[in-house]
């Protein structure tokens, strides 16, 4: 576990990337982010016909001089977005090679860095059955060191309760923001919390980390399986048949998550820990339109 220590090397590769947040519709402080809403920014976007009530200072007089048409200049409005990153730090995350937790930490660091690079107000929290600690990073890029130290300190332990955690966290926010949840989703009824966040009109980015041994269990024989979180035991003869049944159950579970996220307009990303995190961010997330 000691080997799994975060450093800032790969963050350099992220320098030119930005978090692409879609469909932001809430009013906020002017930030660096381009809003789809046309308005008071400085960067020219488009023209439209003058309508009664439009400010005269936005009329393009050059166009009028040339074509005798009243056209109003439109500018992209820049908004300020708060980014909340929630990392699952329960015992179940401590599996895989690298562990889902280490993978999650690296993702949290990357998203935080991307967010700070874009001058977004960023807050990092990690949770188990409730929020364990919150680190406000503000808009200061240097706070990334604080986050790095925190991430290197925390360990995966305890039970998960995504629903309660997200509900409490979302209701405690004074201003709406983007919610990035990094978890293995091995929590019963995780959906409610996410539904609540969506109800609060928060865009939710759900990053599902999954390790290789969860997809195809490599153990077999007469086993006693112990739940890493609850300590509950289960005797089972694990053979080809049972593994197949398990894989069917897993497929069903994943399909359920996918359909759930589509239904509630939640951005969903599933990643196996065997995919290098650099590849995930630089290739898959860019292709997926999460960052640009």
């Amino acid at each position, binding site marked *: 576990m000691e080997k799994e220590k975060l450093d800032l090397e790969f963050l350099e590769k992220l320098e030119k990337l930005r978090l692409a947040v879609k469909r932001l519709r809430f009013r906020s402080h002017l930030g660096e982010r381009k809003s789809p809403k046309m308005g008071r920014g400085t960067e020219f976007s488009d023209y439209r016909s003058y309508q009664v009530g439009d400010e005269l200072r936005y009329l393009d007089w050059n166009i009028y001089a040339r074509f005798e048409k009243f056209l109003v200049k439109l500018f992209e409005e820049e908004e300020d977005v708060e980014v909340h990153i929630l990392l699952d730090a329960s015992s179940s995350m401590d599996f895989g090679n690298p562990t889902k937790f280490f993978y999650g930490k690296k993702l949290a660091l990357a998203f935080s860095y991307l967010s700070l690079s874009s001058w977004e107000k960023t807050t990092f929290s990690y949770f188990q059955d409730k929020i364990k600690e919150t680190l406000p990073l503000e808009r200061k890029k240097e706070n990334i060191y604080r986050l790095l130290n925190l991430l290197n300190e925390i360990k995966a332990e305890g039970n998960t309760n995504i629903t309660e955690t997200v509900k409490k966290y979302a209701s405690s926010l004074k201003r709406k923001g983007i919610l990035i949840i990094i978890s293995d989703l091995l929590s019963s009824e995780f959906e409610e919390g996410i539904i609540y966040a969506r109800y609060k009109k928060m865009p939710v980015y759900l990053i599902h980390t999954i390790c290789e041994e969860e997809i195809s269990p490599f*153990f077999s024989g*007469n086993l006693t399986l*112990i739940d*890493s979180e609850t300590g509950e035991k289960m005797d*089972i003869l694990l053979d080809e048949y049972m593994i197949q049944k398990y894989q069917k159950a897993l497929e069903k579970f994943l399909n359920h998550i996918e359909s759930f996220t589509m239904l509630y307009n939640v951005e969903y990303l599933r990643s196996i820990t065997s995919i290098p995190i650099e590849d995930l961010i630089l290739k898959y997330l860019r292709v997926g339109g999460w960052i640009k």
Partner: protein
Amino acid sequence: MSLKFLNPLFLSLLSLEILVIILYLIKPKRLRLKVPSLILWEKVLKEEPIGRWFKKLPKNLILLLQILTLLFIILYLSKPILSFERILGRPTIFILDSSASMTSEDIFPSRFERAKIEIINLSKNIHNKISLIIAKDKPYLLTSAGKNSDLERILSSEKPFLGEGNINSAITYAENLFPKESCDIHIFTDGTEELNIPKNSQNNYFIHVIGKKGRNLGIIDGRVFQKNERISQIFLKIGNFSDKSEEVPITVKESGKNIIKTRAYLQPKEIKTLTFEMPLLKGKIEASLDIKDDLSEDNTAYFYIPDFSPKILMVSMGNPFLEKALRSIPDTKVEIKRDIMNIEFKNYDFFIFDGLIPYFQFPGKFLFIGGYPGIDPNKIEKIGKVKILSWEDHPILRFVQLYGIQIDNAYIFKDEKLRPIIYSTRGPVGYYLKEDNMEGIILSFDLLSTSWIYRDSFPLFIYNLLKYMLSYDPQKQVQENLNFTGFYENPEDKKIYAINLFSQKESTIEPQITSQEVILAKKRPKEKAYVNLDLSYIFLFFALIAIIFEMFLYMGGRIYT
């Protein structure tokens, strides 16, 4: 009863049971494996319904099964034999009289049905091998060395034979069924037939007479004759088999219409022959005694008088004598052809080929004159001018006087399948042929070259020939394949037959013998024997069951499909 082991040394292996327990106690525990969450595994087990009850089973059930498996295997190897002494049971043979008299209803529902019930009841107490013989006109073995449970099923479908039975042939059959063993033979009969039980038999006989003195009047014989061209005669032999004198109404019907209604008075045990004369009868005739007695099968007699109107095809270049002889027979239809082309064989009952012989064989009745189909030229010998000397005593030649008839030009056919019936001075000149579906007479000479055609014997010969070939006896007795009385049309030849019981023996329904035991084999000592029951395979079976169940448990209560 004792239990012994053929390989007792293997019993010492029972000490291995302790080893199994020790191994169970020291066996490594299940491998414990930490997994992120059991959420998905629980879903998997929920889909396996068998897993629920499996969880409720005692945890050390596998140990118990292992102990049992080892125990059963050791017992199998030690070959346990359970031996007990018992008296050897005799095989039992049931003989059921199935003659017409067994249908008598002096006992409800009938003698036959009562006998079946008594056999089933008796067989319930017999646990040795059981055989069942049904005594009809011949004995029929329905089950041999079977179980008592089979009897009821076999007997339920058995119906009585409506003809004359032969129970003594069934006894002979039973005697030879198990020649090396002493059997108990139970005869269920109505006692109308004397039983011939062999005196030196090794078997014990138990005779169960089913029946009592019943009331019966029956027709025990009958015939319809043609007295002359206008009058028919009916003979009826009727009997009173009761102890009282009876007056019985008699009805005779022709094709369903009453033609005679009369009464007859009979003393007890009297047998009387009645004769009726009436205009010429044809078709189906029924004579019945209009009474209700215990045996109804013998109350009606059936007769059938076939209509004789044959269709004859004569193929000839011209023979007026033959033609005249044919046309003189009443109701005969004769068709004459001058060649053998386009003959519809199915349209005729009889064929005469005079000089014109077909080259192929065909089914039917025939008279060939001068040759026959398939004749081998190498087997013909010309004998020239001869005289007829003698002839066989055959129905076709009845009243036919052939002696001295001159034949100008005759041949001898040296064919083995031909049977000579008319002989000349130099050899046979008339033959009888019967093979497969062909039957007829072959004359090896030309009729017009003889003096026979001028004699009375020639039309007589033709008449006899047609009568012999085309008439049949329509009266039949009840048989195994014709187990009923009445009229029957044979699907093969389309001829109608009248089937009757006509048996004085069966009509006499009063039992002639009583129930008795004839113990012939009682001096034989009861044979004792040790019965050894090999239990090893039972234990092997148990061991396999235990192993399968153990595997089932080990697999977590799942069955692979």
